[in-house]
């Protein structure tokens, strides 16, 4: 009887827009996240068509033009201009490319590293598992921002370096989730069946394990993507991320910081976009988790 009663009760961790585990269409956070993300992706893809100006074109006589809703602003520069007279709207639009590509790229790299580690740890167990978990714990102990800054400082500030650095550092959640899921799947009948039939280890991993892990991996990927976007912005904010004059939103905030007294929009606008994008990605991840892999909730 307790099963009956429990099956009717709400589950554990969910997102604020969701009451019960639901299907695609009624999952509020999934839809909201997806729509905002879709808008930003469209913005990134169609940047050359959408941006009114060249994001790198300077125009010193036009510096610090306020956005259209403030006195002194006008429709020719809807979001105003920065300290070098560059159109903010165009920079924001092109900036979305940086955030998105770093986010996706990092998720791919860290996903590859983390999932490989996690699946091996879960599948082989024993010594290998202990070693991998030790490495994961060591990675958790390392101050990520500090190490990332140091690596970028050493190898030079560039898009590729930032991508690889973040990808090489942000894999721990992939490892933990895939490990836990693999341990569960390890004893499943279909895995044993494949092994008995003589499938090699890589074959088992590829054909039996990974398809069943895909859901959990996708959920972690969205969440790590959000993490990566924040971190890239933070690194760029500190001056050791994507190099100027690239329109990274974090860099724009840093450049705007000096004008905090009189031109605060230089800070608030890129931050608002970054916040919206990260929020959307997180909501998407939470929503996907509710739909695809509800058992992996806390």
């Amino acid at each position, binding site marked *: 009887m307790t099963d009956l009663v429990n099956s009717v009760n709400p589950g554990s961790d969910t997102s604020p827009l969701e009451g019960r585990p639901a299907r695609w269409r009624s999952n509020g956070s999934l839809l909201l996240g997806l729509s905002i993300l879709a808008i930003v992706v469209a913005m990134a893809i169609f940047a050359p068509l959408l941006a009114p100006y060249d994001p790198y074109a300077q125009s010193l006589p036009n510096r610090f033009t306020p956005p259209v809703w403030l006195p002194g602003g006008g429709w020719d520069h809807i979001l105003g201009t920065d300290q070098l007279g560059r159109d903010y709207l165009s920079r924001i639009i092109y900036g979305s490319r940086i955030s998105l590509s770093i986010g996706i790229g990092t998720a791919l790299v860290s996903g590859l590293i983390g999932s490989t580690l996690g699946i091996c740890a879960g599948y082989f167990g024993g010594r290998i598992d202990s070693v991998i978990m030790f490495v994961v714990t060591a990675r958790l102990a390392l101050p990520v921002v500090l190490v990332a800054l140091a690596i970028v400082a*050493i190898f030079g500030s560039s898009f590729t370096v930032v991508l690889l650095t973040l990808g090489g550092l942000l894999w721990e959640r992939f490892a933990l989730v895939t490990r836990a899921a693999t341990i569960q799947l390890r004893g499943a009948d279909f895995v044993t069946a494949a092994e008995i039939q003589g499938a090699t280890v890589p074959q088992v991993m590829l054909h039996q394990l990974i398809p069943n892990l895909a859901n959990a991996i996708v959920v972690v990927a969205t969440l790590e993507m959000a993490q990566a976007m924040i971190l890239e912005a933070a690194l760029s904010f500190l001056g050791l991320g994507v190099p100027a004059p690239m329109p990274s939103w974090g860099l724009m905030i840093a450049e705007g910081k000096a004008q905090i007294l009189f031109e605060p929009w230089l800070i608030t606008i890129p931050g608002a976009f970054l916040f919206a994008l990260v*929020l959307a990605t997180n909501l998407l991840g939470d929503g996907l988790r509710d739909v695809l892999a509800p058992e992996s909730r806390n």
Partner: protein
Amino acid sequence: MLGYVLRRFAIACLLMLFVSFVAYILLFAAGDPAVTIAGAEAKSDDIARVRELYGFDRPILIQYIDWLWGVLGGDLGTSLYFKRPVAGLLLERFAITAKLGALALTLALLVAIPLGVIAGRKPNTLIDRFALLLAVVGQAMPSFWFALLLMILFSVTFPILPASGLTSWRSYIMPVIVLGYFSTPAIMRLTRSGMISALEADYIRTARAMGLPERKVLFDYALRNAALPIVSLASAEFGFMLAGSIIVENVFAIHGAGSLAWESIARADLPTVQALVLCFSLFYVVFTMLADILNALLDPRMRAR
């Protein structure tokens, strides 16, 4: 119990060894350290002399062991920039950062745990949605932007709080809030889900069936059980928070260990950077170890081991 503590301590030591090795390798990844110290325009003779002086001509492993030996004795090298022992420098700076971190963690716990308990007690109600919204926003908010927003609000628009430095108690407010908000979402979510699971447990049903007052059921029974993972998470979050202080100290111009980290990287002050990586990691390792031991003490099922 003692066995567990010893084992945990041994793992902590191994971890630090591993991390220290990683930190040391940084020195060599940066290129020839002798060149860095001597300067880019130095002549090859000078570079050779620097190399000999600092012992960079020895095998890497020997250098590492030498350095490690020094670290264990309290010698963390000499700052290339400040020209003084790193150890003393770190002590000063970490005192500030640790204080900020402790205040921030306290704030985070004071907000997150009650919110999590209430949300867990009444899932899917308005207060629960509010709590989850707070968590989701907190996890999406870049800390440097949040810091700057607070600054715009409370130092520029309504100038009531100082924007930089640590001059009075007021200057602590914004940095502590930003740093605290860093960890609040995770702790709140864990408390909430912990409470929900705990409240679904059979022993809670027993307690209620025996007529225990709801307050007792909530705190003595449910929260007590949910608390164990929260202790672990809080300790890990403290470690992450300290590492995140790099950003907050930069924005608020606070001279703690975080800003030292950034400055030292910018100045290529390698010994300081190495020592900082080591120390931040040490905080994480020590605190998570203490949390694990505390859990073992609190959980009678662990004490028997």
